């Protein structure tokens, strides 16, 4: 089963600034779920209205596809170290 990332870690260290952030994304998912449920009927209406133009289907599929993209971010890690600067972005 695919799970969205639960923690976003950002760390920036340079001569002037030391910035570290652990963002607990898992706290956001219930909010996003509620928002999704509230907006779902509106999305259905928009998709039905846009169906003749060809954009209805993409609009309808957009949610699940974006969710799978979000889930796929788990494990992404970008780390750049220089003698004077360090940057880390990691989805866990």
């Amino acid at each position, binding site marked *: 089963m695919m799970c969205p990332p639960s923690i976003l870690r950002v760390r920036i260290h340079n001569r002037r600034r030391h910035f570290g952030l652990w963002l607990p994304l898992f706290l956001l998912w219930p909010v996003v779920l509620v928002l999704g449920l509230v907006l779902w009927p509106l999305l259905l209406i928009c998709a039905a209205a846009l169906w003749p133009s060809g954009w209805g289907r993409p609009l309808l*599929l*957009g949610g699940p596809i974006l969710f799978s993209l979000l889930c796929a971010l788990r494990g992404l890690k970008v780390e*750049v170290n*220089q003698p004077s600067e360090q940057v880390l972005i990691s989805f866990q």
Partner: protein
Amino acid sequence: MTDNQRRILEMLAEKKISIDEAERLLAVIGQPVAGETGASDTTQVSKSLPKYLRVVVTPGPDQDTQAKAEQVNIRVPLALIRAGMKFTAFIPQDKANRVNEALQSKGLDFDVRNLGKEGVEELIEALRDLEVNVDSNEGKVRIYAE
């Protein structure tokens, strides 16, 4: 245990190869030979599909470059490719036709809406053998799937 596996373990015990190298060699000899693939082999292959694309840049031995150079370590989940491919569903039919026409005019007989799951899996499976090594005085670049 086959002779090859035993030999690899012996080389590891004698410290001729590292644990990572032994793991890789064992994975390579564990792969089915082309044409021998049965149902159980297929599941074995799908289990050993790479999960991440790694890009590692390390500075070279030069003292000057080491003082300035960047160390880069990027790990991209290959699931992003699978998810990204699903975005082809966003392309409306008329736009997809235009893209296909443009591709055909360049000699590519290809349907952007027909990028199925199997094609993506095949692509990811092919990435298992990908390895790019660039070695210079300024640094080392390594791109591989794991």
